[in-house]
């Protein structure tokens, strides 16, 4: 039995609000609050804070779960999607005790590459508006295009098949990149929306996928095997951009980077 005359501490006030207070002490706290308006005001404020948090964030839990978070997709994935160098081993487990686990973070650097993305977006803006000469080699000469770009760039340039997202290869061109040549591929949908894939050698290893936006263009960028890839497209539909990026990503992986 606790003594109601023992002053209620700040810790007890918190514990009271969070239902962590021993049951027998609750009435003491309630009696205390009735005669201590300052503490009572704080307790009310904390409760209002919790209400505000729920009002603001509970609906996130009610949202439809994005496809990329579906368990089946994550399980069937051959490797991590959108995970970068952060993906170094992160979780360590310790046996023993009831809990039997702990997790700790390993420090690892992700490396993005703003200059490549800026170059890619610039090229995207420059060429998507081009009607007569958007590319140097047309998509009808896909094999030749890939061979030529691979030879000039020094890695295997593969023009992914994006037909499942309604995009058809318009063609490609060779561009100067920040550190050597860059390959530039353009795709177009039946409705005329254009996406481009810009790839250039970068120093960083594999990184997390990032999103950037500039003017009305959006870009998803990531690195894979020393090559930086930037998928640019209209910025009005980010899901669409991600969907295309994923398709490109999956195919560049198959091609061995």
């Amino acid at each position, binding site marked *: 039995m606790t003594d109601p005359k023992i002053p209620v501490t700040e810790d007890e006030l918190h514990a009271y609000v*969070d239902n*962590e207070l021993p049951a027998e002490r609750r009435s003491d706290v309630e009696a205390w609050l009735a005669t201590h308006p300052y503490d009572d005001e704080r307790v009310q404020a904390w409760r209002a804070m919790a209400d505000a948090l729920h009002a603001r964030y509970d609906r996130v839990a009610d949202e439809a779960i994005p496809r990329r978070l579906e368990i089946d997709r994550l*399980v069937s994935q051959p490797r991590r999607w959108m995970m970068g160098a952060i993906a170094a081993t992160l*979780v360590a487990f310790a046996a023993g005790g009831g809990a039997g686990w702990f997790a700790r973070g390993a420090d690892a650097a992700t490396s993005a590459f703003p200059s490549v993305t800026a170059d890619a977006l610039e090229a995207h803006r420059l060429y998507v508006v081009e009607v007569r000469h958007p590319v140097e080699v047309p998509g009808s000469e896909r094999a030749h295009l890939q061979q030529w770009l691979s030879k000039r760039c020094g890695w295997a340039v593969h023009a992914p098949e994006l037909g499942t997202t309604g995009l058809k290869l318009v063609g490609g061109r060779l561009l100067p990149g920040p550190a050597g040549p860059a390959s530039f591929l353009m795709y177009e949908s039946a409705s005329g929306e254009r996406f481009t894939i810009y790839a250039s050698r970068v120093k960083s290893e594999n990184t997390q996928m990032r999103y950037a936006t500039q003017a009305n263009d959006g870009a998803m960028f990531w690195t894979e095997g020393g090559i930086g890839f930037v998928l640019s497209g209209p910025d009005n539909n980010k899901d669409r951009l991600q969907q295309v990026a994923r398709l490109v990503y999956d195919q560049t992986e198959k091609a061995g980077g």
Partner: protein
Amino acid sequence: MSAFRDDVESMIPALRRYARALTRDVDIADDLVQDTLVRALRSERLFLGGDLRSWLYTILTNLNRNRRRSLARRPQFAPLQDTAADASGTEAEGRDIARALATVVEDQRSVLLLVMLEGLSYREVAEIQGVPIGTVMSRLARARAHVKAFLDGERPALRRVK
């Protein structure tokens, strides 16, 4: 699907809620949840029992800490915010609490959200953060005081009068 996967799956909505409040950015939040899920699924055999829910919150909390560390080294790479994504009916109140959260330091914000939003016990939060319960309580007290001061100062005209 295994029971383990079912259990992990059932936690996705709550993890998304926590991540969103923690980062206040839709994409970063879902990246964190995705990384958390991938990690958890890969570690199924390493999971030795205990509380799955706490374990998932732990992974997410640690991933976020790493993310912030790497961002701190290269602030210019901070992912661009999706400004359009978070409007809602409770905007006036929502914006205030979101802005208030932004001013709370990471560890305190994490405690505040795990206790107040996710409903975890002090003990569970202590395990998640790897600190004694006393530390959890002092972080919670500081976070609450900070948010309250921010909200009081932010909108004195709207302060509740009972």
